């Protein structure tokens, strides 16, 4: 089929030329993502201090850990994503830096050590107090606001990574020769069907 060949060729051209069309950052992104995934050279954060970097890595993996379906936030390059966004959107710097400091202050008051130095159980004890906005005590409101932001950034970074998109089983962003609607299983699940 001539048309089929033609559309196939277009799809191939589109895929192979992908890098050329993306902004210049895409190049850097690909490099970053590869570095983050293979970890051949240690990543040097542009925004986070070494201590903040350690905290971010621990915290991100507490938010999205490895499970039977996919890896953890750090394995998906989430801390690197956060570091980039901090320089890309400077408005987020104070809430991030301040929130990490708030977390350390809170743990230090209680245990005399930093968040990363605390045991996993001690870490989750504090998270339990800020991760559930409706159940949190009023005096924890700053921690709740920080954790809402940090959870959002972790999710944004994780689920837009190759690992995250594969985990979600997203099947699009591709060439579909003919649109036939949704498959019967999907319709059945929603209790809907196509008419005549």
């Amino acid at each position, binding site marked *: 089929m001539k048309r089929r060949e033609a559309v196939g060729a277009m799809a191939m051209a589109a895929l192979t030329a992908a890098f050329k069309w993306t902004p210049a950052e*895409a190049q850097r992104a690909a490099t970053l*993502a590869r570095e983050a995934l293979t970890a051949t050279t240690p990543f040097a954060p542009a925004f986070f201090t070494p201590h903040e970097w350690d905290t971010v890595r621990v915290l991100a993996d507490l938010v999205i850990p490895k499970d039977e379906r996919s890896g953890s936030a750090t394995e998906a390059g989430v801390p690197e994503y956060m570091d980039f966004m901090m320089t890309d959107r400077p408005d987020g710097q104070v809430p991030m830096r301040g929130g990490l400091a708030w977390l350390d202050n809170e743990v230090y008051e209680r245990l005399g050590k930093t968040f990363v130095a605390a045991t996993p159980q001690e870490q989750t004890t504090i998270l339990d107090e800020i991760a*559930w906005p409706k159940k949190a005590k009023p005096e924890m409101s700053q921690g709740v606001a920080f954790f809402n932001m940090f959870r*959002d950034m972790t*999710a944004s970074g994780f689920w837009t990574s190759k690992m995250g998109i594969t985990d979600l089983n997203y099947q699009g962003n591709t060439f579909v020769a003919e649109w036939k609607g*949704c498959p019967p299983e999907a319709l059945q*699940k*929603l209790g809907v069907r196509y008419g005549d």
Partner: protein
Amino acid sequence: MRLATQSSPVDVLIVGSGAGGGMATYALTRAGVNVTVLEAGGPWDNTTDSAMFTWPYQSPRRGASTKDRPFGEFDGCIGGWDIPGEPYTVARGDKFRWWRARMVGGRTNHWGRISLRFGPRDFKAKTFDGLGDDWPISYDDVAPYYDKLEQLVGVFGSKENVPNAPDSIFLPAPKPRCYELLVLDAARRLNVTCIPARLSILTRPLNGRAACHYCGQCNRGCKTNSNFSSTNVLIAPALKTGKLTLRTNAMVREITLDRTGRASGVIYIDTTDGSEHHIEARVVVLAASACETSRLLLNSKSPSFPNGLANGSGTVGKYLTDTTGTDAGGFVPKMMDPVPHNHDGVGGMHVYMPWWLDNKKLDFPRGYHIEVWGGTGLPEAGFGGGIQEQNGGGYGKQLKNDYRRYYGAYVGFSGRGEMIPNDGSYCEIDPRVVDKWGIPVLRFHWKFTDHEYLQVKHMQETFRALITEMGGTPWGNMPSKEDGYGIAAGGVIIHELGGARMGADPKTSVVNSNCQTHEVKNLFVADGSPFTSQADKNPTWTIMALSMRTSEYIAAQLKARTL
């Protein structure tokens, strides 16, 4: 320093290359007329510049917005609400935001490709309810141009015979997505008309353009030109005729006049080096967008036009409207734990709801249509944001699994309705502020009345009823009266119309029924500015039909040597 750029006048000079300018360019070059187009922004070609098929992880930003791509870095439209060096001002206490595109194709690189004909009633709405003004032309005057437009550009849809939502010459509509069937069922139970969408995306090959491949990324610009953009569907073929000279980075400052009071050309600034140029033309067509066209006319002052060119009526910049808009979304439990499948579809909704009610039984005039969104799309920056509003929050394996379960488990509705022109909504030249080229900028005034507020209230009530009917829970509470029931600020829907409105009476309008200014015979307007009224439809389709109509008039007049 002013430089002359050509030795003899061009036939037709068009300011702007978007929907209106692109169509004028296409139609006039087809008619054998030599055309020069001045575009304020830079070059763009979807076949080479689009980010189609890019994965979010190919950028460190994961698709988040940038300064010149407010709708995401992969978006195919360069521009925004705030362009460096090109300010505008808003009167104290008013709210207005002005979106501008700066690229070949203008805002056709941005729009949702919702392509709706205005209906017979939309041209004569005052006759029905006494508000605003009737157009000097009727649906029958425009219908032949809608026909030609649809055969040229292509639009999918279905024959439905909905009152005042005329059917087009349609390509087949794509089947609804699964969640859209859920919306259809809910709408049916609530007696809300819900029909296949009408978008200018090709579901069959047309005029050498390939059919859609259903990647859902029309907003990034289509590399196969399967959707409409002025850039690749109008400008590109016009260039092939050899009749078009396209100058990009050309910011027009002023329209010039000759001694007899005819337009003689324009002065523009080459934004790459700041140099100023005068270009002469036999006919000038303004298609710079409703507000930019008003600005150009108001800034073109002369002894014979002290208040701005073609502004003897004092109505340039007046009768400015935007579409009314508000949105609501909600969580739909039935859509949790989705069955994995690709339902990207076309780059937009497959179903929509045209206006379906009788205003006699309502407390507001005119109508709105409803756009539909939801489901499991391509994850991009912001994915899963605010999940605590749905699942309470948390972290760890439970949270990770919640993200999967809630993925795409929502629907949303956007109401887009008709605003009535009012005396408090207009633009004028700011007496103090100039842009970086020294061109005086616009100052906006904006007021909504109860006509708009009550209409938007009705939208919110309808959306919430639909979500509830689907077994869902709306996000957030119904916006209060104090919050204007959630009405979007003026300009935010990016459907500005008016400013050089059409009318039979030169005392109360700027252009005649051919979009020719009453006062300067060789000056025409071919964008959203001649609209006498809004409608409950997106304006682009009518902008193009009118531009085609005006262009045919210009070509005929040039041929008859009467211009």
